[in-house]
């Protein structure tokens, strides 16, 4: 099995920098992290110096994602021959930082991966006893509830968490997802509004909010959704989903019997503009490929069919 450095012809410094980049960008490419990280730990541990601890943490979380239990924590001492240098991540971290809460959280995550939810919950409770402001432990407890499928309880706990830590955007996003799964679109819209306020230039939140409003239905919400699709497009011209959303919300409003003539005309104008943009986008995108004609035709037919209904 060729090692990563041979396959891609990279040095250990490049591998380390790549890991750092993934860490800072919060990538979740766990397979790659495990491959690169495992080799770094096994071959070049001495050269890494103090970097090795954060790499251990990163590789451990990735290993839990890929169910590489051998890397995260060696369960049996049977393979003594090879594992003497191959200290595993959690053991090494525990040895180096015995009283650390960050390491305790990693131990809790490992218990979660083994589906021992009770023990993991106890572990997080002990962290919270020492330090009530530790947000990471609280969030892990909520994700245990989510993993067990108890979404109502998870929602309740997350609400309590957010009452105290109002600024946690990750938590707001998670709550909006949970509400969408429960089809409680009003509350999901509230969470997304919080996110939009804190990140006014993020087109994805605008688009998600518009989709939630569109799903809620009703004339007012459709108008709102059309506006927010337009805002998402303004923030990012290439957002095709927002373009389609704009078309659909505008054509829905135009087709609704309750609107007066001016509103209808305006919406028909928006819808036709959106159609033109979509057609143009598909033509430009598929330039030079054989499938181009087919896909453009498919899009045209689709747009016509939506207009008809």
């Amino acid at each position, binding site marked *: 099995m060729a090692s990563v450095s041979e396959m891609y012809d990279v040095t250990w410094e490049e591998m380390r920098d790549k890991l750092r980049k993934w860490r800072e960008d919060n990538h979740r490419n766990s397979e790659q992290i495990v491959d690169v990280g495992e080799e770094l730990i096994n071959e070049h541990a001495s050269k890494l110096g103090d970097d090795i601890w954060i790499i251990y943490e990163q590789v451990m979380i990735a290993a839990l994602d890929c169910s590489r239990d051998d890397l995260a924590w060696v369960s049996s001492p049977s393979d003594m021959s090879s594992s003497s240098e191959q200290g595993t991540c959690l053991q090494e971290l525990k040895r180096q930082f015995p009283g650390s809460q960050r390491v305790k959280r990693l131990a809790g995550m490992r218990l979660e991966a083994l589906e021992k939810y009770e023990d993991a919950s106890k572990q997080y409770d002990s962290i919270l006893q020492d330090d009530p402001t530790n947000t990471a432990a609280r969030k892990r407890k909520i994700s245990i509830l989510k993993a067990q499928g108890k979404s109502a309880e998870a929602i309740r706990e997350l609400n309590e968490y957010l009452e105290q830590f109002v600024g946690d955007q990750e938590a707001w996003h998670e709550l909006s997802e949970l509400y969408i799964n429960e089809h409680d679109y009003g509350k999901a819209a509230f969470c997304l509004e919080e996110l939009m306020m804190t990140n006014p230039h993020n087109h994805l939140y605008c688009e998600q909010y518009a989709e939630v409003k569109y799903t809620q239905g009703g004339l007012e919400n459709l108008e709102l959704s059309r506006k927010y699709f*337009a805002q998402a497009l303004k923030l990012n011209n290439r957002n095709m989903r927002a373009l389609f959303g704009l078309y659909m919300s505008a054509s829905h409003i135009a087709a609704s019997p309750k609107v007066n003539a001016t509103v209808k005309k305006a919406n028909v104008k928006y819808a036709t503009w959106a159609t033109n943009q979509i057609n143009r986008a598909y033509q430009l995108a598929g330039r030079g490929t054989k499938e181009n004609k087919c896909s453009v035709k498919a899009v045209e037919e689709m747009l016509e069919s939506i207009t008809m209904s």
Partner: protein
Amino acid sequence: MAELLLDSSIRIWVVLPIVLITFCVGIIRHYVTQLLQSDKKVDLEQVSDSQVLLRSRILRENGKYIPKQSFNMRKQYFNDAETGFFKKVKRKVTPKNPMTDTSMLTDMMKGNLTNVLPMIVIGGWINWAFSGFVITKVPFPLTLRFKPMLQRGIELLSLDASWVSSASWYFLNVFGLRSMYSLILGQDNAADQSRIMQDQMTGAAMAMPPDPNKAFKSEWEALEIVEHKWALENVEEELMSRDLNFCELVLHD
């Protein structure tokens, strides 16, 4: 005043040693401070309050991106006469008296010990060890009033005030090596004496304003006067007037 010619061994045996001594003492001070530093205990309520204030501020600044109804809903949550958050929540405030509060007292003592004491000791030693001669000439002219300050131990009435003794060279180093410390130890290092002296002068410069009630009141007032002007009023027109060329350019890759 004529130019004095100083022995070049002054350069080797006085100027450079003083620089080295100051530098090393600074580095030692940094590490000692790090060792002696006690953990800062964060209060859950304080964290929560600071986040609420942040949220209210964001509402004021970016409220124009959410629909009018949502904005009003949030404004009412904060500011309503009876049930609003800023009206209802009163925090118990214990003023932190620096004399009686034990943690702050020990912090102050530690700060004094690690910063002021070495400065006095080393300054005095240098004054004693390197006395009786001038070290260097500052490049700008000084008035005569600086003479007793900068020329300790040299009783020459006609000597230019620009010629300084070793003690003043030491103090010059203490402040001058600040940027060297930030280069080597990174920003926000404990060897930075001038910053510590500034902190002592401004008094208790703690993390959050010690009176959250005042902060709530000012936030309430600020939120009252904010009006909601929806940024999305004409967004479709703006989009369509601009987009026709843009879309093509952007997809062109």
